[in-house]
């Protein structure tokens, strides 16, 4: 084993230029991946944040009694996929509106036209339509009939809700697709660079075979070379990322909700993923690319 390591180091030293090219390729792709992964995560995190704000409003009739309220509440609680119910009383609703529209409400005089309401949060954004249907099934004559006579209207702000759901899903899928493409591209790029540097040395491989070296005897130093290249490239990329994170992102992170999105990958995990990826891709790239030249 020590022999193979020495061989790998020797050929790295003697083939400095192709090795450097491969190293740079690994470095750059890992850098891009390292930036891209958190960005994708932050984006999907932000999208999830928006989806979480999707709620269903159940407006009570103006003359609903406390008993009605309790009954409806129980009814809502009994519906599947309901995560949270928040009661908004007439007075609370009035205060909220007043905050939003200010003195314009004064025109209404002292009367409060707003009804009591329940704000229902689903356990999953996509379930909201189901909850709406459960609380107010579509009537035969068209329109909707609430399940309880005390309910005036169940409103899910349907157009906005669907729009949000579709938009966030598109964002997630695009980000995921881009990440996959990027990983595929970097794999090909690294494998190709290694292949080129091997191609320059195919005569060497041929000679080794003629002297009676077994395939694995020839292959091990190349694979180790790939591992070393991958590890060095990965470590350099991570160092650069760490510097960027500490110098640029951390100071402003508190001011931006997006970057501080709770679901962003933690840095330790990112390091592990990047190192593992670069080492594995480089080693496999060397090992597999060599196959062609071993047929002597």
């Amino acid at each position: 084993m020590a022999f193979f390591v020495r061989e790998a180091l020797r050929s790295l030293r003697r083939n400095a230029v192709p090795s450097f090219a491969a190293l740079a390729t690994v470095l750059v792709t890992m850098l891009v991946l390292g930036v891209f992964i958190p960005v994708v995560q932050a984006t999907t995190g932000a999208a999830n944040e928006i989806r979480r704000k999707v709620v269903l409003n159940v407006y009570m009739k103006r003359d609903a009694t406390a008993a009605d309220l309790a009954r409806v509440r129980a009814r809502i609680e009994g519906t599947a996929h309901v995560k949270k119910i928040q009661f908004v009383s007439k007075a609370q609703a009035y205060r909220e509106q007043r905050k939003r529209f200010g003195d314009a409400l004064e025109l209404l005089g002292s009367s409060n036209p707003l009804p009591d309401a329940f704000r229902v949060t689903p356990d999953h954004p996509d379930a909201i339509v189901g909850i709406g249907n459960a609380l107010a099934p579509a009537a035969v004559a068209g329109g909707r009939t609430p399940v309880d006579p005390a309910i005036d209207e169940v409103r899910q702000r349907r157009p906005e809700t669907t729009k949000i759901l579709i938009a966030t899903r598109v964002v997630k899928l695009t980000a995921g697709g881009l990440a996959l493409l990027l990983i595929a591209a970097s794999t090909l790029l690294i494998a190709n660079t290694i292949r080129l540097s091997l191609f320059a040395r195919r005569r060497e491989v041929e000679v080794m075979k003629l002297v009676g070296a077994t395939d694995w005897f020839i292959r091990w130093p190349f694979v180790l070379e790939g591992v070393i290249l991958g590890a060095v490239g990965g470590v350099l990329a991570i160092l650069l990322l760490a510097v960027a994170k500490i110098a640029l992102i951390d100071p402003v992170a508190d001011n931006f909700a997006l970057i501080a999105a709770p679901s962003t990958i933690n840095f330790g995990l990112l390091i592990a993923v990047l190192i593992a990826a670069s080492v594995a891709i480089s080693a496999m790239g060397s090992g597999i690319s060599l196959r062609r030249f071993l047929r002597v």
Partner: protein
Amino acid sequence: MAATEREIRPRGAAVRPHGDAAPAPLAGPVVEFRGVGKAYDGGDVGLDAATFSVRRGEFVFLVGPTGSGKSTIIRLLIKELEPTAGTIRVAGRNLAEIDHKRVPYYRRNVGVVFQDFKLLPNRTVYDNVAYALQVTGAGRREIRARVPDILRLTGLSTKLHNYPDQLSGGEQQRVSVARAFVNHPPLLLADEPTGNLDPATSIGIMQLLYRINRTGTTVLVATHDNAMVDRMRRRVIELSGGRIVRDEATGLYERGEESTGEFAARLRREGGLPGEPLG
């Protein structure tokens, strides 16, 4: 791995070749071609029904013009090519029976010298020779003991740490011979070993091969260097168009007093010669 080496290497009466019902006699041929043919994919004939055998310790020249099949014989012997007809036996072992995985172990018992040296450009003289030992799994101590010896034998002790591109052609070929012989293979093949060298240097290389032959190693040299063949007066197998046209125990490059032109004329008259050895 070690077992195979022992099987192939005909080192004594106790060792007998593997894969043969009857033990090959000690005096049995090291190389035996029986009706061997090689047709290349393009339809070119590399070798046509070649039959000959080489005894242990012989020094044999394969001569003939370019394309006559000399290199084909060498490449068949290191199993770089597979014959399309006939059988090749080395030390009694049928080469066709050696599967792909065992080829490296077989090759360690055959030293090969090429016209273009085929040295590893990234290694010093010492490391080039050491590599042939490293592939066999030899330890550092053994390498340190044997490599300087063989380099002294080949007259390269002052160039140990030079890289191949810092050496002259003759010196590079000496390194290549040293690498081929460092394992002390029972069979040494040389494909145009002096093809790239001037006559004076060529003599040195040939003397080196001759000395190796004197240690008991069977040596097979493909060449078109007629001066060398005439000077050495060893066995000559002449090829033409993939056929063996002459096999003489102590031959000259050309048959008798015949000129090349006369020989060609006779060939045409006789309509080709049988593939049987004539000598």
